């Protein structure tokens, strides 16, 4: 998989790439026209801009670094649980080869445990994403959103790349979430309200929150 993902080994044929480069081949930019518009817009903004002698008010509560640390701990936990799941999966063939003392029942149990581990981790991850996306919709301070989205993006990728991620419904949901989290991660602090509004519109159009809620089981260890 890594070979396929190094950007070289699965490269498209030269003919296709050449055609792709010819498509929408950009003309020279109208430099002076754009520059004049930039100058005009900036001049207009400066005329109505308030003085910069007041520091922005920090939202009350814990410092913004805390959620990031908490999320890092979560990601480490997710990675560890996935490693256990993968380990169990790898161990299964060894037991099947005849070294096991009680082959039939334990092998099934180990396989099930691998699936359960993946399900638990996925459910917890989806809950965290749901929390983030719900906060996004309620429209509070967006500063921590980008950092949280970046952290959740990492665990989304871990889950997508896990051998346990075979369920097509969950996979499709995780792929959608990956794209949304990329967008949230890009939102700039202080100027992102409009971007966030557009992202939340997208969430509604794609029914992401209802799909998330359907995918998250009611009980903590229920299989997805």
């Amino acid at each position, binding site marked *: 998989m890594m070979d*396929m*993902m*190094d*950007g070289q080994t*699965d*490269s*498209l*044929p030269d*003919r*296709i*790439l050449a*055609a*792709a*480069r*010819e*498509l*929408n081949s*950009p*003309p*020279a*930019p*109208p*430099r002076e*026209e*754009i*520059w004049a*518009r*930039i100058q005009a*817009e*900036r001049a207009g*903004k400066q005329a109505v801009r308030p003085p910069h002698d007041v520091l922005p008010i920090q939202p009350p509560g814990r410092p913004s670094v805390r959620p990031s640390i908490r999320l890092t701990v979560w990601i480490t936990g997710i990675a560890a649980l996935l490693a256990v799941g993968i380990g169990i999966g790898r161990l299964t063939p060894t037991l099947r080869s005849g070294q096991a003392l009680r082959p039939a029942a334990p092998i099934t149990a180990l396989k099930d445990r691998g699936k359960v581990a993946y399900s638990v981790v996925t459910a917890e991850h989806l809950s965290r994403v749901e929390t983030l996306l719900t906060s996004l919709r309620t429209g509070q301070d967006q500063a921590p959103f*980008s950092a949280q*989205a*970046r952290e959740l*993006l*990492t665990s989304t*990728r871990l889950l997508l*790349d896990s051998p346990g991620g075979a369920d097509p419904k969950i996979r499709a949901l995780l*792929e959608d979430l*990956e*794209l949304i989290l*990329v*967008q949230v*991660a*890009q*939102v*700039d602090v202080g*100027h992102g309200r*409009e*971007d966030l509004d*557009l*992202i939340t*519109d*997208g969430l509604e*159009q794609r029914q992401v929150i209802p799909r998330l809620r359907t995918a998250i089981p009611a009980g903590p260890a229920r299989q997805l």
Partner: protein
Amino acid sequence: MGAFPVVADSMERTSLVHRVLAGDAAAERELYDAHVDRVYRLAYRMVGDPDQAAEYTQDTFVRVFDRLGDFRGEAALSTWVTSIALSVVYSGMRKVKRFRQRETDLDEAVAMPTTQRQSEPDLKKRLAEAIDSLAEGYRTVFLMHDVEGYTHDEIATALGIQEGTSKAQLSRARSRLREKLKEFEGEWT
């Protein structure tokens, strides 16, 4: 590195940023000249329309100058500018998409432009449709890497994702394109 050279080195870049922040109008123009082609090319690749590309380029530089004080030099200035450009383009594209969804009937009535002067019109038409049908993230990474020549490091920094994610998205984009262009396979082998 992308298709265009960025400002020579980090010292020069820092000096340029300081000059702009100090209100040097010539430095503003210098910064604009150094990055406008790259921003416009990327915007054009993403939207395929010169007016929209110019509008997004304009918005990008307005934001760049507004927020240059936030630039900490952790990434190359060109990458920082690219990340702002992508944010502007994504935001603009979503607005256009929303507008188009409201105008579905009109959209259906308008035929897709199919005039291709070069050879292989069918391949190009199909390729254009295939690229347009890619999910936003896959499409961006494909256009940036395979078409515009950005590195995974630049893409990852600009999009705020891991380099591995950029590679994975490119791999998936290529795989989807192969799938959609399967009928041309015999011609390219």
